[in-house]
């Protein structure tokens, strides 16, 4: 990838090495004072958020909020802005919310025209790559977190969001979500909503198997006991599908950081400063093999894909599954709120990340060629007003990593639990720091090899290491970028 770190410097850089909120606040200075004038408007928005529908009254009040904010915080904005986004696919309802939010913002800013374009999954990355090469297209772009965003940032496609949005605004965002796109003291994108991945379990099945449905297994040994009991009760313990590889990332995310203290440490074997065969990285493969040998999975695990594997849970055939938080409401509708439990991954590793909730934040970034970066940044801030955050959750179930979002308003206890974990017990998904090619062409294949019996855990780890070595030889530029990134995190 091309390295170009000469993005426009519109504000003084902010020290964000560890991304503590305290540091954001320390850097806020006068901007915070200016923003404080917007507080009444935000409070007004909070009071308005009692209405959960997109009714005319809510629209009017939100529009008034937007108007009030911009009248105090920013000068009159004008110009066109193009917003390429994705997300309806994983959080249905977002499209409606985006349309509504654009409408409200334009109502409050008559001189602003925002054009939102929902992207197809397959074209999101190549479409933005082509736009970046041509330096035209979106002003505001959705992107997956971590290495996906940073790959484009290193090519000079992105204006750091910390250059456009004040530190006191960023201080509301969960630090782990911000850290996904942090490099050399800059933050490149604004987290939009989180995508936590976690276990779901069927409480009825747990009860049938003699397990405590309110106390799911926390340790690996307890997990194996649960597997045995579910199996003995005639229930497939863990419904899963490997075909097509699309679910292996979700699967690995539950386990492969358990020997590490920081997510970014997974970059070490990528950069060549550690070996993947080290138990800190590969112990999880032994644990997975243990679960396979124990009969934890459905017999047709190799011929089902991710969705088909998840269907086993929805149909009540399986006791456990790995899902995304946005799927919770669908599961609750299908199985009942009393049946669906959520749990953290069973803990076996010795690292600080053992047993943590794996989460990633879907990001929004301002392009380096944006003609109206101020409009784009202001629109982002508007998206993060409490009223809009609330409306987004109501419309789509998506949860923003923003402390202005009122979690008590979440309808489902499962969602409240997940948000609490994300804030206090969450860890960034390993995929944010792991080259995508080393998933599909490496880690995923090792997991498949474990499942279809072609590889033993040590062989799988060795295969991952050898493939990393080959990849490193051919991708020296990326290795340098990733090494620098890891170094910048300390």
């Amino acid at each position, binding site marked *: 990838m091309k390295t170009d770190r000469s993005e426009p410097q519109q504000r003084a850089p902010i020290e964000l090495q560890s991304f503590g909120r305290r540091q954001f606040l320390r850097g806020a200075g006068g901007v915070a004072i200016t923003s404080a004038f917007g507080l009444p408007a935000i409070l007004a928005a909070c009071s308005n958020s009692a209405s959960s529908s997109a009714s005319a009254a809510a629209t009017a009040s939100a529009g008034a909020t937007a108007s009030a904010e911009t009248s105090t915080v920013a000068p009159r904005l004008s110009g066109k802005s193009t917003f390429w986004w994705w997300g309806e696919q994983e959080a249905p309802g977002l499209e409606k919310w985006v349309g509504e939010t654009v409408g409200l913002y334009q109502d409050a800013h008559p001189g602003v025209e925002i054009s939102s374009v929902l992207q197809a999954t397959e074209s999101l990355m190549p479409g933005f790559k082509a736009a970046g090469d041509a330096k035209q297209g979106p002003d505001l772009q959705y992107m997956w977190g971590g290495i996906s965003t940073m790959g484009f940032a290193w090519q000079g496609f992105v204006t750091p969001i910390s250059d456009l949005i004040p530190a006191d605004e960023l201080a509301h965002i969960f630090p782990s979500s911000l850290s996904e796109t942090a490099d050399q003291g800059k933050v490149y994108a604004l987290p939009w909503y989180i995508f936590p991945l976690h276990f779901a379990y069927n409480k009825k099945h747990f009860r049938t198997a003699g397990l405590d449905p309110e106390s799911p297994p926390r340790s690996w040994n307890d997990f194996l006991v649960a597997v045995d009991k579910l199996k003995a009760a005639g229930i497939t313990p863990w419904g899963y599908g490997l075909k*097509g*590889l699309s679910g292996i990332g979700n699967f690995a995310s539950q386990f492969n950081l358990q020997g590490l203290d920081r997510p970014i440490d997974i970059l070490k074997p990528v950069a060549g400063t550690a070996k993947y065969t080290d138990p800190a990285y590969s112990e999880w493969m032994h644990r997975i093999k243990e679960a396979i040998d124990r009969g934890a999975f459905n017999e*047709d695990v*190799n*011929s089902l894909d991710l969705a088909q594997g998840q269907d086993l849970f929805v149909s009540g055939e399986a006791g456990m599954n790995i899902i995304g938080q946005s799927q919770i409401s669908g599961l609750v509708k299908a199985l009942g709120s009393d049946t669906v439990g959520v749990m953290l991954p069973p803990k076996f590793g010795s690292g600080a990340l053992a047993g943590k909730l794996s989460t990633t934040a879907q990001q929004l970034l301002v392009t380096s060629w944006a003609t109206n970066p101020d409009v784009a940044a202001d629109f982002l801030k508007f998206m993060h007003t409490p009223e809009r955050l609330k409306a987004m959750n109501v419309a789509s179930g998506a949860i923003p990593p923003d402390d202005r979002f009122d979690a008590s308003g979440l309808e489902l206890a499962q969602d409240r639990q997940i948000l609490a974990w994300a804030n206090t017990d969450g860890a960034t998904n390993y995929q944010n720091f792991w080259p995508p090619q080393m998933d599909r062409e490496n880690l995923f294949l090792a997991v498949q090899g474990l499942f279809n019996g*072609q590889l033993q855990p040590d062989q799988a780890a060795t295969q991952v290491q050898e493939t990393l070595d080959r990849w490193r030889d051919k991708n020296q530029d990326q290795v340098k970028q990733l090494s620098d990134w890891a170094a910048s995190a300390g």
Partner: protein
Amino acid sequence: MGRLLRSLRWSRPPSAAWLFLTPAVFMALLVFAYPILQILRASLLDRGRNQFVGLANYASLTDDPIAWQSIQNNFLLLAVIPVLIGSSILIASILFDHPRGWQIYRTLVFAPYVLSVVVVGIAFDQIYTGRGVLNTVLSGVGLDGFRREWLGDPHTALASVMAVIIWREVGFGVTLFLARLTTASTDLYDAARVDGAGWFAIMRHVTVPHLRPVIAVYAASTMIGMFSWVFGYIYILTRGGPGYSTYVSEYFIYQSAFNYDSLGSAAALASVLLGIVVVAVAFQFSGQRQMGVE
């Protein structure tokens, strides 16, 4: 008149001919040559630095086990050609004899070809799962030992994909061969029967020789297809897995270009693929000429 036209044609200066040909040649170059040249150019560049790197992208393919596996799988897919040709001829011959309800059979045989690859892929994805129709049928007839995770087992995945390709594509072959058979003189068949030829002898000495030109074209187009038109099947059914067991060149090119930002590798393999197809087709037509097939 013909002589006059020929004399007129040859009496014109070549420059005039080129003048009239120029727009067509330009369009042909634009449509065909330009993209190929761009691919060749990209295969010689480092995408990130946009620098000329000579044959480095090709060299990197040689020690890339995935690229080798992809090409190897494309060659393995060629195994569908004789199966397609054989089954198409067989079915066409049967239908040509107009058995009762032959129109219905013809429609049924051709129907899969009308379906999109995506639809076919989704249908077979369900059929092939561990608890799918295929395994259910096998169990039903007492063949539990043959139950497999057809697309999940690296030993059966590629063969399973081939079966889907054959199922969908055979209808086109049948239609082609049936069309050709309608041009055959019934006298030939009558004479063969009078001479005491059985079904197999008629097939060998009358039907197949008559079909030979169509077989040549069908074989060539199917061969090109097995190198350049199987992406849809792979993408829907297996995404190249399990492992690399169904990874083909097109999928490698797609992944490299669009997911791994490695346009150089993608362009290099695309160029290799083009070369393989051109050489293979040239060999095939050369062989056909030697056998007297026009």
